[in-house]
């Protein structure tokens, strides 16, 4: 990128361009570890408050929609499959198949967010949102549960949104031939990010939806 004036004039051939595949992947993994620590802190907060208010957490959790939680888990697991298959397809030079699989991942990501929207809407409609009169009248443990629920699923939802945007960019790069069977690290790193989003949800499901 720096001190390579020729690059701006002549587009380097994909085969001779400098790629640091291992370096790029290591960088992504380091980022993933910081995400792990970020969510890990929230999981510890959840653990401590649940220990202190076990009954309240139990009661509050029973108000969450288990079916929606499980449906969203299956959606995310399937989207992890489609993006993993998309990378294999691209490496096997099946560009069209890779793009269809990546687009499916995007659709599944959006379906997750639509479910989340309906879930949150129903809760907010019932007066259950941080700071609401209805919630503030409840015991502190339930207030903490819903605070963590909105905070953690909200932060996770933000990651899903970022992931969907990232995949739209990847789809465009594949279409334009910038991501190819021999230069796919950007897609691979997007896949790693998406799987991380999946891993976090795997822990959110039993802690919030199945805690009752």
């Amino acid at each position, binding site marked *: 990128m720096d001190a390579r004036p020729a690059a701006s004039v002549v587009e380097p051939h994909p085969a001779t361009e400098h*790629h640091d595949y291992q370096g790029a992947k290591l960088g992504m993994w380091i980022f993933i570890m910081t995400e792990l620590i970020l969510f890990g802190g929230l999981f510890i907060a959840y*653990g401590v408050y649940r220990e202190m208010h076990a009954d309240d957490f139990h009661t509050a959790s029973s108000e969450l929609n288990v079916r929606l939680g499980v449906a969203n888990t299956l959606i995310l697991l399937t989207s992890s499959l489609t993006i993993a298959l998309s990378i294999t397809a691209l490496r096997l030079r099946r560009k069209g198949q890779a793009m269809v699989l990546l687009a499916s991942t995007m659709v599944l990501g959006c379906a997750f967010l639509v479910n989340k929207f309906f879930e949150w809407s129903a809760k907010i409609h019932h007066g259950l949102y941080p700071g609401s009169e209805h919630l503030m009248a409840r015991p502190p443990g339930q207030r903490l549960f819903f605070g963590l629920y909105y905070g953690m699923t909200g932060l996770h939802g933000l990651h899903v949104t970022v992931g969907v945007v990232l995949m739209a960019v990847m789809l465009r790069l594949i279409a334009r031939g910038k991501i190819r069977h021999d230069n796919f690290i950007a897609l691979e790193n997007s896949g790693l990010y998406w799987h991380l989003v999946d*891993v976090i949800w795997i822990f959110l*499901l039993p802690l919030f939806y199945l805690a009752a």
Partner: protein
Amino acid sequence: MNGEVYRDTEHKQPERPRMSTRVSTSMEGSMHGGAEAEGGHLTSYATFIKVWLALVALTLGLVGLSASHRPDLILVGLLIITPAKASLVMSYFMHLRHEGAAMKLMVVAAFGVLVIFLFLTFSDYLYR
């Protein structure tokens, strides 16, 4: 473990496409040390689909256990099934099992730090 990795590559890959990938990357990317060094392990469609089926089965199992309303079974779901699902995703989808020792060590270290935080925090809250 290496033997298993090798077997996976040898038998589960669709034969023709794998060869075409090998040839192309070793020709075009020879300056970077060949196909495996440049692109890493190529996991087959079949392996990914099997892992996905296992993940769906484990999820349904987890829901079943939580519906039993037995605290011991629910604890099994939380402490065994959930980490098992996460490690399946990390090992196969994030292909950690085909990464080098340094990468694996980094992930184990990060989880280790998290467990230390968890232990220290709980030792404070549970025994104060």
